[in-house]
């Protein structure tokens, strides 16, 4: 038999799993990964799984991981957009699994974009 607290824990845990089906989705942070052929060739798959893994380990609710097509800057793939509920979009380029975990920790959780991985920083170097 479950206690009230245990039931509530099940609710919260399941809610995290199914939150992408709930209606209050506009509050979510969206992580959009370029998954066209160029993105996949550049290694977007491990990046995506790293995002998923990190989000899962931190029990983050209201984070959506979705894919998108090629935006035309194939040389900078894997590219990832992080869109916060206020509509601000930060584009990260040449992301790898380590960078992905850092983006989750700094940007998604704490709200500080990781400036050195952004498209602006990459263009300055070039």
């Amino acid at each position, binding site marked *: 038999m*479950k206690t009230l607290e245990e039931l509530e824990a099940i609710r919260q845990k399941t809610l995290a799993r*199914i939150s992408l*089906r709930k209606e209050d989705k506009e509050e979510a942070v969206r992580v959009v990964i370029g998954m066209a052929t160029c993105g996949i060739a550049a290694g977007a798959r491990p990046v995506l799984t790293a995002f998923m893994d990190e989000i899962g380990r931190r029990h983050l609710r209201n984070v959506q991981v979705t894919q998108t*097509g090629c935006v035309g800057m194939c040389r900078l793939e894997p590219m990832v957009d992080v869109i916060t509920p206020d509509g601000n979009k930060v584009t990260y380029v040449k992301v790898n699994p380590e960078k992905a975990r850092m983006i989750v920790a700094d940007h998604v959780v704490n709200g500080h974009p990781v400036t050195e991985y952004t498209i602006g920083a990459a263009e300055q170097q070039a």
Partner: protein
Amino acid sequence: MDIFRSHVLLCGGTGCTSSGSEQLLEHLNLKLKEYDLDREIKPIRTGCFGLCEAGPIVIVYPEGTFYSHVTVSDIDEIVAEHLLKGRIVKRLLHQEKDVDHTVDMALDQIPFYKHQTRVALRNCGVIDPENIDEYLAFDGYKAMQKALLEMTPEQVIDTVSQSGLRGRGGGGFPTGQKWKFARASQGERKFVICNADEGDPGAFMDRSVLEGDPHCVLEAMIINGYAIGANEGYVYVRAEYPIAVKRLGMAIDQAKEYGLLGKNILGSGFDFDVHIREGAGAFVCGEETALMVSIQGERGEPHPKPPFPAVRGLFDAPTNINNVETYANIPQILLHGPTWFRSMGTEKSAGTKVFALGGKINNTGLVEVPMGTPLRTVIYDIGGGIPNGRAFKAVQTGGPSGGCIPADLLDVPIEYDSLTQIGSMMGSGGMIVMDEDNCMVDIARFFLDFTVDESCGKCTPCRIGTKRMLEILDRIVSGRGRDGDLEKLEKLAHNIKATALCGLGQTAPNPVLSTIRYFREEYEAHIHDHKCPASHCRALLEYLIGENCRGCTACVKACPVGAITGEPRGLHIIDQNKCIKCGACKEKCRFDAISRH
């Protein structure tokens, strides 16, 4: 990895299962493994989404992309394009007929869902019905928790009374009042019964709730038990609903495992247990007194009321019986309060009602709308209108107990009282749409044929009276109608309504009475002119060959009884005495020379 980035919902209702959704699920699992996506994408089998016509249906979250008519080979494309690369497969997006869509369509954007308000069906097609955790996450068992731990039984009953909820099985009796009577009755044992013996032809809302959200019915039954002081409940469900029976059984086991059913629920000191009884499919067992004796293992026959079940019901103990859909509303009422519930619907009919749309309509399926919505909205805006450009003729509501509503009453709001006023009834919510090709006399005959079959035979008016009515209707549709038949039908109908023992007999003449009321001229055409205005009744048809005939002899070869004669290249003739009115000649004719009258 516990978190999935995408959920793929497949409809596992009876409709989509029979169009192959099981195979889709198997194939999807296979493909996800192949692309190594199985740890990030989760397929979920849900209950009915309601749009059965477009099945099998697949919905992909978080986008909410709505795919319809999905086949096994389409799954390959959905996985390779949408799930792997995030490119929506536009080709498979749901298209409503006669509507041009170029934009990506999500579930809540399509016209079919836009006009709906889902209360009883809120979880159907959203959660995995075989997983209690998902129900819990969608506020499941919170209403029960509130009732058992924070409210007295009287407060629960007051809340239900104030909500204005009325029985959704057809009668429309105030639910709160029913509970109050059962509470007031004294008895060592009391029972709660969920009536899931859904028998109306074309009605399947109870099945969909049980298949898509079985826990919400259980939760409501526990609340009901607490309110009236019963510790045992029965769900009486048709054995023809195997998926519903299976999921309900799973739900009961899961609830027991979590201590939400059984002894001392949530430490409240309240005990409750639920049993399933499978009915053998007798229509009369949907009548509450017949249902109860059937649970007791006796022949399903109704008894006179009083005594009402609230006084002496199952095993002679005070019993409360409610329909599946009624129960599906209860947890929401307790959670959101009676004022919220009253904010939907009309003064005398609060809340929403689920309808099963069938017949000559584009979007066959299940819809839930606020009470008071005009029939027109349901049939045209949600149902998508009549297929093949035919004209709307009538809509039959309430199944064999209801009546036909003609086109000029389409703006009548759907409520218990307004439907009764125009000679039909709410019933359990079957809605069968008819177009100009349907003969209203034949429709009345069809429903009466059903009740004659299903009459248990206990009382004379129903056993013999309906049979006599059917004989008269048979005579009329075969062209042997006589003067005075209509009057005789009406007299019989009124007598049966006044004297039959149970609801089955008392309402059986309704389809006949309502069609006579609104389509009297069709009956008269059958009786006096021996014509069927809808060209439907075979015996009254006449096939004639006109001047367009080139004498190609195609019809001669097509006629199975050799009724057509004529020289090649000459005008042919149909021998009306031999003709069996099969229409084979008309189909074969390339010159449109054969007409039907």
